């Protein structure tokens, strides 16, 4: 009974939903909420990146650029040109999807380190353009972003809202939105993984040549998953821009790309809950380490290095493995 619940594909989603519902009881102030909201938005991005890195086994060291393009398109088109946020968000996702498709086709032929190099280069070029086109993007100083609004209703962290007789803060509503977005992101990712398309994607990782001889057009599937993960990043980038109200080119930088892929690898490649854990850990670690002041950077590097050396499969899969050994249960698939 318990075992079948464990194995069901909804289990991960259920756990996640429970955590999102229970968490507000532990969040004491707006600062806590802020971290939780950022975690939610970044986690949704990383769930998309995991489809590419964890499941299809392709490396991207430039994914933050797609996040950045989504965020900047939202900032510029809503701020400078006064367009409505949601259509802009969708438009940006389409544009990013097209960019990913166009650059993905040639670079996804590359393997291993050449693919890392190419994705890194694409990311850098986009970052440099955002950083240098001051008149449009505001350059290194950043750009402010209007609040998210749907049908004229504005969602602003500084406002309070009357809903069903309750007074809810804008921050709390953003928390709810981020939670829903994350659940949606996970649901869609799981639907993709748990399908013929997902099987084809995983086979690209498992054995590309085997996939091809049974008829999988691997180039097409690599391109598809690259576009999907880029669209994830773009959409979350747009939401992130509206949430923070102010963005800098830093969100499209190489460093941010590294942070994103580290969340995937640290949490556990090909484990949807794992990569979310990776986001939580990497977002909390700086808060904890801030107490160490000038030791912060050194300790961050050290922890990253040691975790990857001793848990090369990532946090969650390693912990699951230990738990399984402890419970002496039959091996089962991670979510």
């Amino acid at each position, binding site marked *: 009974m318990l075992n079948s619940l464990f194995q069901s594909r909804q289990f991960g989603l259920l756990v996640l939903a429970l955590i999102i519902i229970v968490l507000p009881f532990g969040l004491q102030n707006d600062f806590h909420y802020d971290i939780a909201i950022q975690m939610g938005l970044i986690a949704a991005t990383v769930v998309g990146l995991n489809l590419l890195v964890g499941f299809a086994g392709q490396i991207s060291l430039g994914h933050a650029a797609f996040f950045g393009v989504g965020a900047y398109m939202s900032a510029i088109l809503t701020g400078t040109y006064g367009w409505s946020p949601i259509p802009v968000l969708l438009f940006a996702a389409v544009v990013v999807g097209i960019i990913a498709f166009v650059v993905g086709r040639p670079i996804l032929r590359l393997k291993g380190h050449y693919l890392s190099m190419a994705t890194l280069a694409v990311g850098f070029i986009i970052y440099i353009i955002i950083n240098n086109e001051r008149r449009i993007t505001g350059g290194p100083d950043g750009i402010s972003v209007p609040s998210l609004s749907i049908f004229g209703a504005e969602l602003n962290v500084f406002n309070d809202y009357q809903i069903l007789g309750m007074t809810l803060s804008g921050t709390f509503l953003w928390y709810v939105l981020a939670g829903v977005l994350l659940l949606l992101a996970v649901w869609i990712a799981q639907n993709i993984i748990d399908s013929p398309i997902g099987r084809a994607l*995983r*086979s690209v990782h498992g054995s590309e*040549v085997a996939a091809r*001889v*049974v*008829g999988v057009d691997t180039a097409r599937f690599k391109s598809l998953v690259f576009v999907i993960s880029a669209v994830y990043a773009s959409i979350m980038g747009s939401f992130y821009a509206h949430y923070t109200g102010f963005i800098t080119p830093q969100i499209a930088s190489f460093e941010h790309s590294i942070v994103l892929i580290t969340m995937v690898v640290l949490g556990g490649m*090909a484990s949807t809950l794992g990569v979310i854990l990776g986001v939580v850990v990497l977002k909390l670690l700086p808060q904890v380490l801030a107490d160490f002041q000038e030791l912060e950077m050194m300790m961050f590097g050290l922890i990253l290095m040691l975790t990857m050396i001793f848990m090369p499969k990532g946090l969650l899969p390693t912990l699951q493995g230990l738990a399984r050994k402890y419970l002496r249960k039959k091996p089962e698939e991670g979510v």
Partner: protein
Amino acid sequence: MSALIEVTGLDKAFGGVNAVEGLSFSVNAGQVYSVIGPNGAGKTTLFNLITGIYTPTKGEIKLRGESVVGLEPNQLAERGMCRTFQNLQICMNMTALENVMLGRHLQLKSNFLSTLFRLPSMLRDEAACRERAIELMEFVGCGQYVNTEASAMSYGALKRLEIARALAADPKVILLDEPAAGLNGTETAALEDLIRKVAQQGITVVLVEHDMKLVMGISDYLLVLNYGRKLAEGTPEQIRNNPDVIAAYLGG
């Protein structure tokens, strides 16, 4: 009888060394056709050429009368060709069953939307695919591994799993690259039965194999390679009595 695979004047050079040279032969539909020869004779290279993993330097390969030179392996799979590998190519990040289900990739016509929202049509196709995959696993003798991770299976079982995956694609012709390598006597005997059963279903089998007892027992026709060239071809009886073949095998 019609030629299913027709190879003419096939050359493949690696950095000036010819791995396959001036090779011509044809495989008839319904045959068990074996390619034999000493190590380094170019057998696996030949397989890689036929299945589109390598592109020939020169020559023509026809599948059911259509030239297939330059096609990708997945395009060949669409035309009914499937294969196994000498060095296992199993997706170790999946279960055994999923590996076989992967073989039915071309039979599943689900689109992106039905995937995204798990529409009933997709779920129905998946269930049918799963059923067929389980059948095939039982057919090749891997029935007990349905819920096992591929990475937890033995070498012999994985070899059979690869055959199940290839069969899942409903191929017209299946190329088996040294299926008996690394198997013990009992396993080899079971393999011989399996190949016979496959051939009985009307699937053409092309076989690269070192185990002479197995090859001579099940082949309709043989091609002997030596240093990338054709040394001889014929029925098992003709090959057994061919002086060139005897010389090559005894190191003459």
